[in-house]
């Protein structure tokens, strides 16, 4: 229940009720976009966005930049670690 699935908004189906089609791992389903439409903006602005879907509602937009940044941090962490390991191993 708490596991959300990432999907991409492909179309708006009912602007008034803020419903849209979201493609999740190849299948499409109608999902409420009420929590991810920015205030005072049309639901259409969501099309193309990656969202996290929970029980039929898009609960958050997934930030592509943030995703990339996290991966970069992980990469660095790994590198530092290898260096440390090399440091420890060297001369022993």
């Amino acid at each position, binding site marked *: *229940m*708490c*596991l*959300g699935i*990432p999907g*991409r908004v492909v179309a708006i189906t009912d602007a008034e*009720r803020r419903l849209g089609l979201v493609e999740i*791992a190849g299948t499409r389903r109608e999902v*409420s976009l*009420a*929590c*991810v*439409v920015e*205030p005072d903006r049309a639901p259409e602005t969501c099309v193309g966005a*990656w969202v*996290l879907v*929970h*029980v*039929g*509602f898009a*609960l*958050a937009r*997934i*930030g*592509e930049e*943030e*995703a990339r*940044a*996290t*991966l970069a*941090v*992980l*990469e660095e*962490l*790994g590198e*530092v*670690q*290898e260096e*440390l*390991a090399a440091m420890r191993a060297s001369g022993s």
Partner: protein
Amino acid sequence: MKFVDEFRDPERARRLVAAIEGLVADIPTCRERPLSIMEVCGGHTHAIFKFGIEGMLPEEIELVHGPGCPVCVLPMGRVDDCVALAETPGVIFTTFGDAMRVPGSRKSLLQAKAEGADVRMVYSPLDALAIARRHPDREVVFFGLGFETTMPATALTILQAEREGIRNFSVFCNHITIIPTIKAILDSPDMQLDGFLGPGHVSAVIGTRPYRFIPEVYGRPVVIAGFEPLDILHALWRVLVQIREGRPRVENQYHRVVREEGNRAALAAIERVFELREFFEWRGLGSIDHSGVRIRDAYARFDAERRFSIPALKIADPRSCQCGEVLKGVLKPWQCKVFGTACTPETPLGALMVSSEGACAAWYQYGDLDRVMEARA
């Protein structure tokens, strides 16, 4: 899949584990006793078992599975209430699949359905509302469950029902709220925790600020984490860094989804429809003040508790069950007396063996079952 595969890369995971091992070597206290880190969210519990994360970690780290599985924490009497509602003439009872097989004192919803009650599994409360639209002559009740992740969905569905003037839809509200729950765990004398993995999707709704009391009052680190293996390892690493530095704070590892202020639209919907209950009864944890919500007076006509008579009896767990201890993290799932014998996914005695987020079900599915059974024989 996008945003999934990148966070499952085994090579990166291996390096993260090495980083964690390096850190642990730097924390002297964990030589005396392992560091206990609790994941509060059932989604994390599931991911930890599924990806075998415990097996990757050094012995000095112990993961404690918290009470974050919303079906698991419902006392047995609540299942009986659902069955009573489902058996009320004219009612279509709708629920998430997770709740179908949870045993009540007499029967589960699945058994009630087999005996003729109209119980339907839905993926979303919106699907329950659609059933109400299609059957104006029937009363459709939705079993509202879960923390702040599913709360906005229920709230927005009620608001939608109001907008459309749908009169045959109501919610049996058993939503619970995370902060009082964490507080109760921190206040519990049998819990010795060194840090927390903060729930990812609850935090997408409530943001990061509500957790501040954990470092400020209790001096424990919290790192809000995503659900992929690299997310969990990365968050654990950050908890350890905080422990080593002796500088507990709230950190957010799950930047791609969680914003500091949370989700305003979701919070506004929750605020509009729900209010805190004085207390809420949990399985295993007893009654926790302000840990549940109910539907506000303004939306009373969508409240199943007011529209139907609900038995609301207190039913003690069967004696052989140790769900309470497992929920609190005092016992490991396989340490329960009936784990894998009287209690299996086919014949569950407790909800923890049913829900995909339950620790017992996850352990049964992904744990080293043969070893446990051998050790017992």
